[in-house]
Every structure is written in structure tokens, then in C-alpha cells.
């Protein structure tokens, strides 16, 4: 992943910036140019609340090469308290502690090392609340 590609995702990966539709209030993460609910084209930039709950999850045992040293690792679909949904790793827990409905917080963490140079790429991961 070359530098411009990584850099332009930083507002979402580091700061959870989303777009809120000015007409119907739909919260788009990542931001979009056209609202999928009402077709409106104007959005306000808002940060997502970094808290939410697990809608579903898995524990990946066989991963692509870039993640092969991390296995097994949990990945879930998280719904934030303001209603956006995203996919993130769920870390700092045992797989048996995970359950649908459990509360999580989103934290800035290292996601993967890119390419032969091993450049660190950061983004959000979820940890169980409490």
C-alpha cells in the first residue's frame, strides 16, 4: 500500500471521521458522496462515538500472509452507539470471552506491517469494555 493510499484513509482510521447526511441524518462510515438512504449529496463531517457493541464476530485461524503471524485473532462487526457499523479486530481478550451484544471501545492500535520494509499501519481495534 503506497503512501498516498494510506495517508488519505487517516481521517477514518485514526479519528473515525464519518459523514452525516444533511437531509436524512444517515451516518456514513466511511464517508460517501451520495446518501444510500435518500440520495442526498451533502454531508457534515462528524467523528463516530468510539463505543458500541458486537453484532457478530469470528476468530480467524487462517489469514492472508500479512496477518499470518497474528493468528488466531478475533474480528467482529461493531455497531457504534451513534448507529454506524464497521469491521474491526477485537483484541486484548480470550476468544471465549466474546459474545454477540458485548460492549466494546474502539482504540488506536497497530493493524499490520506493510510490505518488505514492514511499515507500520495504524487504525482502530475494539477492546471489551470493563
Amino acid at each position, binding site marked *: 500500500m503506497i503512501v498516498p493510499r494510506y495517508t488519505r484513509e487517516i481521517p477514518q482510521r485514526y479519528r473515525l471521521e464519518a459523514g452525516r447526511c444533511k437531509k436524512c441524518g444517515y451516518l456514513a462510515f466511511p464517508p460517501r458522496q451520495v446518501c444510500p438512504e435518500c440520495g442526498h449529496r451533502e454531508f457534515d463531517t462528524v467523528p463516530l462515538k468510539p463505543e458500541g457493541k458486537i453484532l457478530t464476530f*469470528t476468530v*480467524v485461524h487462517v489469514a492472508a500472509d500479512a496477518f499470518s503471524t497474528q493468528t488466531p485473532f478475533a474480528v467482529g462487526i461493531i455497531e457504534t452507539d451513534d448507529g454506524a457499523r464497521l469491521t474491526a*479486530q477485537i483484541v486484548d481478550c480470550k476468544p471465549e470471552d466474546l459474545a454477540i451484544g458485548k460492549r466494546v471501545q474502539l482504540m488506536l492500535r497497530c493493524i499490520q506491517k506493510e510490505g518488505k520494509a514492514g511499515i507500520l499501519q495504524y487504525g482502530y481495534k475494539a477492546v471489551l469494555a470493563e
Partner: protein
Amino acid sequence: MREVAIVGVGMTPFGELWNKSLRDLFVEAALEAIDDAGVDRIDSLYVGSMSPGLFVAQEHIGSLLADYLGMAGIPATRVESACASGGAAVRMAVLDVMSGASDIVLAGGVEKMTDGVDTTFALATAADQEYEAFHGITFPGLYAMIARAHMEKYGTTREHLADVAVKNHEHGALNPKAQYRNRITREQVLQSTMVADPLRLLDCSPITDGAAAVIVTTVELAKKLGKPVVKVKASAQATDAIALHARKDLTRIPAVEKAAQKAYKQAGIGPEDLNLVEVHDCFTIAELVVMEELGLVERGKAGEAVSSGMTRLGGKLPINTSGGLKAKGHPVGATGVAQVIEVVLQLRGEAGERQVSGARLGMTQNMGGSGGSCVIHILEVES
């Protein structure tokens, strides 16, 4: 618009075919289809392939394959819709003939997956690269998340999932071109290696090399060729967000329902009229969710239906008589075409040991990604 038929079918055996290249595979399947149809020319060609660029570092395969087929000069285009690429190629051929632009069209699909690339990475490019794959999720992982949500909401069990694989291997054992012709037990599925919890190795379709091709023409020309006329009664496609997290209900794949509703309407039939269905069982859970989206069973009841034997050969509605993606193999771009071939063979009464007796009306359901695209065909044999 003109009525369309499928008059020729051809496919390579599916498997780990170390001695064959992408072009070898495609030409072998295409020649078999051309010979089966008995046509002396092809007006245009569509080839479905998910990612020849990643799997063998070859793009521009429409022209390459037309050339190696001895047909340089004809219009030839690669069609891509992730794992639904093959179905989409068939659909392009159907539209081409229907419109009157071409009379005889070859629709093929090919994938060469065993040349040593990181297949987990390549396949994950069918997911949202920046917002799913970036976080390490894999395709088994995405379907595992659908499975867990389905188990939670409807009480679908691990045994239900296993029974899909057991049934498809039972069928695959009867298909000479299937990658896996061994029968397996529920216990073997439940004890196989964990891939993405709760999905295990035997819940997953394999990595496969293979190609498949069909010849699409008008019903009028088909009659002159003297083959059983298998009519295309419906060709429908639908899309959805490719990111699973963007779907409202994680137990559903709405693109399948959308495509199915269009297809039933085009064909003027309902799910109760079908004699057999080939569905996109890339993972065991996919077969269950698709059965529900196609309206073959009530929502949440697909697991029980499979475990009851309803969808086995000899059951009320046989599903994946070819062995499905699970046992027949899943050379991604070829899959949608191979599904059409299975239904054509069944409707012609040429399916050998796995023949569904009296089959008249069949459906194929081909799906891309975690459900971001779906292509459905309904075929009927003229009596």
C-alpha cells in the same frame, strides 16, 4: 427480443491441475462446448474470471483466450463480478443474443488458483479492501460472521452446517468432474481444522483450477442444431454493498432475494415449480442463507430442511446435484458457468448417476463476495 437457448456445454475436470495453464484450461472447456453444440463459428465471447491478474499476473484475457481458441478477431471481453463472474459472463452472452447483436456466443469462465499466490489475500480483494480486508478479515471469516449471526437469531446449529457439506460430498461422489469424490461424515466436518470460528475446513469450498463454457444462441438456431433445446427463461442480476457490515440484517443476503424475484417474474414461475437448484455454497452457511433468500424454505428453517434430507438427490428439491462448490470445486470465475452446465445436463437427462428424474425446470444462483452481487438463471427444457 429473441428467445435464447443453451446448445453446448463443456468443462474441464475441476481440481489441482498442475500441468495446465489458464489458457489450456479455457480452450479445453471451450472446444468441448463448441463440439457439443456442433456450431461452426462463434460471433462473440465473454469470459468470467475473478482475478487472473492476481492469480497468474495475466490481464487482458478476453483477447488472449479468443486467440488461443483460434478465433482472434471476434469481440471478446472479460467479465468480472468476483465469484459471480461466470454467471455474469453467461448473462452478457444471453443479452448479446437476445438483443440480436450476435447469433452464437460463447460464455466461459476460468480460474487458475494453484500457481502459488497468497489465495487468501487474492480472494479477500472481493471484500471492501480499505474497510474489511485491511483489518485482516478473510472470506471464511466473513461467512463465519454470517453463520454466527444466523445461529444466534434462528438457532441454526453446527450440525445443520455440517449436513450441507455431507450432502454436497455425497452428490460430488457421483460427478466424474468433481474435485472431491469422497463421501464425508458429519463427525469429520465437526472435527476438521478450524478456519474461522465457527467454520471449519470442511465447511469451506476448496482452491481449484478449472474452466467451463457454454454456447448461447437463439431458440430458432438451436432447433436446427438438433440438440435438446434448453431455454433461458430468466437471466437476472442484483447488487448490494460489498462490505458485510453495511447490511442491515447480518443473517441475510438481500441481493439474492432481489435477483430471484426478478428471475421468477421473468420466467413466470415460483420457487415451488423448480425441479433442481444449483446454489453458491462457497461456505456451508451460504447454502442455507441462499435457500431462504430464494424462497425455497421459510426464513430460519434452511438448516432443518437440509438435515431432513429435503435437498438430497431423491429429496423434494435436490440442491447442488453437481456436488456444489464444496465438492465439485470452486475455480472462482468458472463456477457460475459450471452451475449452468449442471442444470443443462440435468434437463437434457445426461447427468448419469446423479440424474434428477423428470427434471424440466432448474435454477442457478451465483454469488460474488459476501453477497455484493448475485446472478440467477432459470432454464427450462422444451418437451
